[in-house]
């Protein structure tokens, strides 16, 4: 589903964020991308979402070589990808409903279809009934869940998340991780970047440990 082949990324200024990263994630898999901050976790996710292009190497998403996706095709590519951001990236001048509906509106879904899917997504993250609220009236954990609902609403095959629990307390963080594990059970492929090893200690899923731009270890977690 996602494959990195000897991927290098050098940012302007000469900093090497990735120095030869190779791994692959199969359909239906859930993997945590761990490592200290600055190890290149965000860069891996940014390459998948086509926010960045690799300096060298190949990134394949959904069997598609991302190097062959021209700029004008990026929107269509991103519509099939769910992305969760550490800082939520919500639109604060719109309601929760409108935030979650945004990718569906972009995709040109009908009004009834949008309502159905937004409710389903909000139900999954436990926020049904908050559709009309402005995001600013929600707690940070709830805002993050709105962001997750938005990523889920178009039912993407792949969901990537960059430090989704970065600003949350341990109880909320665990709840969010359980949420991701549940999505995985229904077949969604997930790649979740997190530096919080304690949080995922008891989860059996695969971990990719990234240190200084290289995969240091790759294997299953506890149990």
């Amino acid at each position, binding site marked *: 589903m996602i494959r990195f082949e000897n991927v290098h990324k050098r940012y302007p200024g000469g900093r090497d964020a990735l120095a030869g990263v190779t791994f692959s994630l199969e359909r239906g898999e859930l993997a945590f991308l761990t490592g200290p901050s600055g190890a290149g976790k965000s860069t891996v996710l940014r390459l998948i979402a086509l926010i960045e292009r690799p300096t060298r190497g190949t990134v394949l998403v959904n069997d598609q070589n991302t190097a062959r996706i021209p700029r004008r095709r990026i929107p269509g590519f991103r519509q099939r990808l769910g992305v969760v951001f550490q800082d939520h990236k919500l639109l604060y*001048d719109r309601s929760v409903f409108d935030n979650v509906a945004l990718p569906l509106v972009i995709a040109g879904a009908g009004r009834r279809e949008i309502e159905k899917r937004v409710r389903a997504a909000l139900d999954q993250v436990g926020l049904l009934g908050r559709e009309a609220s402005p995001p600013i009236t929600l707690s940070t954990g709830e805002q993050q869940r709105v962001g997750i609902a938005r990523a889920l609403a178009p039912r993407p095959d792949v969901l990537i998340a960059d430090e989704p629990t970065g600003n949350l307390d341990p109880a909320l963080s665990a709840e969010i991780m359980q949420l991701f594990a549940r999505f995985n059970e229904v077949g969604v492929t997930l790649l979740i970047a997190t530096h919080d090893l304690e949080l995922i200690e008891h989860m059996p899923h695969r971990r990719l440990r990234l240190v200084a731009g290289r995969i240091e270890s790759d294997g299953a977690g506890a149990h």
Partner: protein
Amino acid sequence: MRRYLDLHRQNLVDAVRRLGRQPVATLLTVLVIAIAIALPAGLRVLVNNLASLSGGWQSAADFTVYFKRDVPTERARALSREVAARADVAGVQFIDRAAALEEFRTRSGFGAALDALEGNPLPDTLVVRPASGAAGDVEGVAAALRKLPETDLVQLDTQWVARLRAMLALARRIVDLATALLAIAVAIVVGNTIRLEIQSRSAEIEITKLVGGTDGFIRRPFLYLGVCYGLAGAVLAWALIFGTLAALGPPVRALASLYDSRFALAGLSLRETGVLLAAGAALGWAGAILATARHLRAVEPR
């Protein structure tokens, strides 16, 4: 199709709401646009009014034949009948010198001065209206009449009309140029406003791009905003012109009545109003196109 229209309706409602959220800033921008539109449109109305005023002087193609003073009035009258019979003459008006003197005496107020003169200083005159169309060769008729031994002077009044027409044509050209320049100004004002809007909404644009918003999807709200600015400016421009004409109406009528004229200022016709509004909307759209083409690309997710 319905979804598509829904989306557009939503964009339009959103644009109007955004304008309403900052009423003072919006009003100032719209006022600038309105003045830039009202100026050339108002000048055009003015020139059109002048043209219609000069159009009332079609009779200016008439010319006047002054007979020599030693020609007896009977001879002059006979000649005038001959002239009237010509194919290239539509009609004549004979003014005999005695009647002319009488009229001049009563209307000019120089009665006493005229009494001091010996005899009548005025000649018999003939006002000739050439036939219109192919037969109406003004110069030809005038030349023929000039050759009569009884003719003292043939005065054509067409030259000043030609000059006025030329001046009006020049004025029209100047208005055209001003229209072009101010149209560019309107597009730039809207474009600049949209540029600021893009800057203040960069977070929203970035997020929309991240969840797969196409360039067209992201651009559309800004295009609607541009059209709203242009259209609002045009409506206000129409109101400015309407108000100006309403204010000028009474004094113009008063002035015209002093010249025995029923002339009244004409405003914008329904068609011209339509053109004005369409032009405003189109210029707003063009300004938004310019701004989005230049600045939307710069906002990329980071």
